[in-house]
């Protein structure tokens, strides 16, 4: 079947929804003429024109608010942040407005809004490297979606666009699978698996809130997203050779979270490791540990092991950055701890 990279798959999902539904518009910095800093919106301006693809000034709070206003009045807005680190400039609009409007209006207002952009540590220093999903998993009223493969990405972006709630769609720079025209080297990572690259051309939707078991196993369950999912799979492959059977689950969506799939797996393996690139304290890994504690306590033969970024701003120096972000060997150590007890 035809193969696509992550950026191209996301782009295809957006294009197909924009063709199918005139109410879908795009807002963001350099998304039109330039095609997006990571090429995701390449050529969309040519196809859909300036009334559907808005090249905005550098005004994150402002154009997020524009997206909300558009979403409240009959459009479906897709807002791109050039790096997700910049969404904090729009935090009030996201947390206090977009996420709360539906409830504040007693359900009379809907906010079909997709907030998307890239994240992940790639040697850019603290202001261009953080993983932000934890802040939004903690924000009621938001959905949070994270594709780890091109196949998932297309199906999830289509569902996100069709959803009537604000959806944060988190992309990882290292998974885009293409060089950034914004001047970056072609980013890549040795652990990235060539999986889920067969992408059907016809539109398809993957429901938000359904986890995917990316690898079946018996001895221990690893729950991971984005780049960490790939590192978990790389480790699972290694450990297979060592006689350890690892099950790897990709939640794909953190809000809503598919607790059933996770609980069923832990009930089977009795051992769990959660891995996330966001910082540990009160982050995604904390919630996954707490969720497993809530639902699977009596199934556990060892404490759930968590692997997450060190609680620090991401340093620039490569050796330090590497230490701050979970590596395959960190996941291995956690799996061994989970198996040791």
């Amino acid at each position, binding site marked *: 079947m035809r193969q696509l990279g992550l950026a191209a798959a996301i782009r295809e999902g957006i294009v197909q929804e924009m063709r199918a539904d005139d*109410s879908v*518009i795009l807002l963001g910095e350099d998304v039109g003429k330039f095609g997006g800093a990571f090429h995701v919106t390449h050529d969309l301006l040519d196809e859909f024109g300036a*009334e*559907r693809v*808005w090249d*905005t*000034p550098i*005004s994150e*709070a*402002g*154009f*997020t*608010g*524009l*997206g*909300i*206003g*558009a*979403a*409240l*009045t*009959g*459009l479906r*807005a897709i807002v791109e942040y050039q790096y997700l680190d910049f969404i904090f400039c729009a935090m*009030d*609009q996201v947390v*206090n*407005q977009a996420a709360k*409007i*539906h*409830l*504040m*209006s*007693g*359900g*009379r*207002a*809907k*906010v079909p809004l997709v907030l998307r952009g890239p994240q992940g540590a790639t040697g850019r220093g603290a202001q261009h490297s953080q993983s932000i999903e934890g802040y939004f998993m903690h924000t*009621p*009223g938001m*959905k949070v979606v994270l594709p780890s493969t091109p196949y998932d990405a297309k199906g999830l972006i289509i569902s996100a666009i*069709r*959803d*009537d*709630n604000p959806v944060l769609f988190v992309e990882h720079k290292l998974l885009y699978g293409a060089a950034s025209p914004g001047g970056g080297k072609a980013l890549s990572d040795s652990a990235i698996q060539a999986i889920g690259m067969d992408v059907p051309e016809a539109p398809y939707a993957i429901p938000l809130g359904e986890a995917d078991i990316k690898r079946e196993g018996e001895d221990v369950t690893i729950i991971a997203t984005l780049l960490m999912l790939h590192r978990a799979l790389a480790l699972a492959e290694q450990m297979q050779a060592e006689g350890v059977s690892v099950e790897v689950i990709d939640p794909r969506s953190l809000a809503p979270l598919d607790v059933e799939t996770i609980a069923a797996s832990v009930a089977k393996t009795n051992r769990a490791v959660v891995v996330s690139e966001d910082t540990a304290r009160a982050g995604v890994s904390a919630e996954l540990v707490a969720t497993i504690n809530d639902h699977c306590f009596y199934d556990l033969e060892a404490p759930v092991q968590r692997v997450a970024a060190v609680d620090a701003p991401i340093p620039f120096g490569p050796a330090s950055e590497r230490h701050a972000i979970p590596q395959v060997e960190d996941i291995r150590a956690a799996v061994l701890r989970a198996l040791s007890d």
Partner: protein
Amino acid sequence: MSATLEIRRDPVDCAGADRELLLRIFRKMLEAREFEEQLYYLFLTTAMPGTMHQAVGQEAVAVGVVSALKADDTITSTHRGHAHCVAKDVPLNDMMAEMFAKREGSCRGMGGSMHLTDFSKGMLGAFAIVGSGIPIATGAALSARVRGSGQVAVSFFGDGAVNEGVFHEALNMAALWKLPAIYIIENNQYALSMTVAESSALPDLAARACAYDMPSARVDGNDVLAVYEATREAVERARAGGGPTLIEALTYRIRGHARFEAAGYRPEAEVQAWKEADPIERLAAGMIAAGAVTEAQLSQIRAEAEADVEAAIDYAGRCTDVGAEDYLAYITAET
């Protein structure tokens, strides 16, 4: 500058004004006033939940602006939003029920005073984070343009809100793209305790439009027809593709900032002077002067407005309190 403007007490010049319009405006202003007067009383005497911010003395801005709009034009409001809702035809019953956190409220008891909303009336929301409604209204204007609906979007906000970054970001984009948006600064001269001169380097707030090459106007916010006229021009420009307008309406917050706030930071004489510039009485005097109505007719309208607010209170009394789990239905929208 706003702090030192002379206060006008003269009757509103109603010569040649459409009588139906005058009557509607007068009635709406009275309803807004009466609604808040009753609220104040109800807060004192009943277990009304939450808080409220009164726009007593500012009614000419809300009513003057909205009277120049079509029913399907949209507005965003603020923490001080009762008058905007009244002007936009949100039913008094729904508003009062919302104040009492009833299921029949305009937001089903989920929003309250600071978030009174009614989508069916083009009221997109009352945003209580100062300034946050400005880009949202701008997005509604962008949407009207994309959908080719011919609607205009109006954002109401206070003199304090102009110092929020979103004011700047939104006005730049609206002017850059000539969106059909109208920005109404309800300059009631205070942001809680802060005067305009204490918080704005350029106290002439309408003049801030210069930074966006945007047309602007400064009007007597207690002269409802002046507000109406300025808005009408802005609406015409917006519908004709001429882009946004910034309108500063000078008025005064007769009451404290919220509920029982004493506003001791204001000179008594200043408050007194503005009380004598009451926009409702100035309109009444103008209508009489122009022979548009008789004193008897005015009293009649006053009585009707009071009766409607009374009826809304009775209605709210008959409504059902929000239940413990009601809100669970409103966390996520069904797609």
